[in-house]
């Protein structure tokens, strides 16, 4: 009971602190803008811990954050193996192949107006479909190991990437293309000096959408069959054993990997498209 009261107190305290910070004149500074969500996150974790302990919630329903952290620290080797299998081999492998293939296809498609008209509606349509459903088929074709996961990821990232790149390659205005023409630039000169840089914001938009899709594809595909290693495998078997602390540890890994992956792509975008209005603030 004490813990539950304490949880309420911690929640009010955290909220009051944030309210004070948000209303203070320093609210626009970068430190405060990072501090407020951090305080909120810590408050949620504390309340979670106190409530789980105070109400004696069973481990098979919701483990406390400290239990998850302990499990995380204990099983670092297993988590690392799963990370390599699912993220580095499955997701990243498929991501690179899929995005490269979509990029090259987009360049080909862009050269023909007819193809672009035909492929864009189809691509937009396919991008909205539940493509993870192809996982059982691809697992059947490519076996249980990471190759089939990479194949699922390739199919998942291909169309969003294709649609974005094709849209980006159309971003130049007629006057810019005319200028290239007056310089007697060849197709590839105009491509590398004008159209590719102009397309980069769209390309990176596609790349960023694809990071999340890649992780989803790699993890879900493992639910349909995998070797005895991998994040999706570990999650589904640990759920079966009611070892929810292990499941949460894997979810922490997935969250860290997802944000790091996204952050990395966003960082590259920032260095490559520094000239774009959305990056200058």
């Amino acid at each position, binding site marked *: 009971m004490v813990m539950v009261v304490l949880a309420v107190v911690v929640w009010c305290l955290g*909220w009051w602190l*944030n*309210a004070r*910070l*948000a*209303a203070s004149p320093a*609210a626009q500074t970068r430190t*405060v*803008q990072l501090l*407020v*969500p951090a*305080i*909120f*996150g810590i408050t949620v974790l504390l309340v979670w811990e106190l409530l789980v302990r105070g109400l004696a919630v069973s481990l*098979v*329903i*919701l483990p406390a954050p400290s239990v998850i952290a302990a499990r995380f620290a204990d099983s670092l080797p297993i988590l690392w193996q799963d990370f390599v299998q699912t993220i580095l081999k499955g997701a990243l492998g498929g991501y690179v192949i899929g995005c490269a293939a979509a990029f090259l296809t987009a360049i080909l498609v862009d050269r023909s107006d*007819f*193809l672009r*008209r*035909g*492929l864009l*509606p*189809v691509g937009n*349509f396919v991008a*909205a*479909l*539940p493509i*993870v*459903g*192809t996982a*059982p*088929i691809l697992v*059947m*074709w490519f076996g249980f190991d990471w190759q089939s996961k990479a194949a699922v990821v390739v199919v998942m990232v291909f169309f969003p990437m294709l649609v974005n790149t094709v849209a980006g390659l159309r971003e130049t205005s007629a006057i810019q293309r005319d200028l290239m023409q007056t310089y007697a630039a060849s197709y590839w000169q105009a491509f590398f000096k004008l159209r590719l840089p102009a397309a980069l914001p769209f390309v990176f938009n596609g790349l960023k959408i694809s*990071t*999340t899709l890649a*992780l*989803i594809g790699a*993890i*879900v595909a493992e*639910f*349909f069959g995998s070797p005895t290693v991998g*994040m*999706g495998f570990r*999650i*589904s078997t640990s*759920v079966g054993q*009611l070892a*929810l602390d292990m*499941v949460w540890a*894997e*979810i922490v890994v*997935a*969250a860290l990997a*997802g*944000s790091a*992956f*996204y*952050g990395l792509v966003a960082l590259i975008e920032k260095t490559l498209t520094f000239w774009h209005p959305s990056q200058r603030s």
Partner: protein
Amino acid sequence: MKTFFAVLTVLAAIIALWYAACVPMNIKGVLDQAERAGAEVTPATPKARRDLGTMGLVANNSFAIGDTWVQERPRLPAPHQVAVELWQTTVEKKITSKRSLIYHGQVTLSATLLGFAIGTGLGILLAVGIVHSRVMDMSVMPWAIVSQTIPIIALAPMIIVVLYSIGVQGIIPKAVISAYLSFFPVVVGMVKGLRAPDAMQLDLLKTYNASTSQGFWKLRLPSSMPYLFASLKIGIAASLVGAIVGELPTGAVSGLGARLLAGSYYGQTVQIWSALFAAAILAALLVALLGLIERLVLKRMGVSA
């Protein structure tokens, strides 16, 4: 009109590619069957066939090409096989039958819609809170944005089991997964939309002495509609994926996800493909329906013609 023909050409090319791909994918199975049935096959032993590679097999046994499109359990079913299976399991089966795709689709659809309604409702509420409260904006919004980079679908198996262990089963666990998958896109899109009116418009309402709630109903809400519908379309697709994935870990007996799983256990490729196409058609219908509602609402709100 030109676009229409271009799309048709691309679709025809995809179907042609599909038929062509069936030949090398299925040739080995067809030849094994033909040999067992006593036909002349070159090379004669399964081992020699494995060494030859698929293209060589096709070249040596051109008589078998036709059979690659009508196999019972092909590695890659031909388009017409999938179409026939779709027709048989939707139109010719009774809706109550356990083998009817309509029945399975309706199970998945009801979970999707329930989850989508919950997720969207909560998402819009949170967005309204975020727009009107600085504290909520500063503390919750960064987490909502970060959550979009995380494969939260990994939580799906756990939610099913946890809810099961406290006695909740059936449609609710799947709907919960659908709800949280559609929740975050709606929050982010709706916040963007509610902030869409510029300072001039907000100032105008202030000179009219409009209250906050009047400003909300007359300016912020109408101008958020395009953003809302853009994220609703993402949300409903995510909800459907959530409902399908939610059917996997429990070994559910009904629903499109269960059809996929059962098909992959028993090697019923035609069944997998038809379930996949049913899911695709369902997703397309839902997105199209939202597009229709969007047109009507935007017209009503006077945002665009």
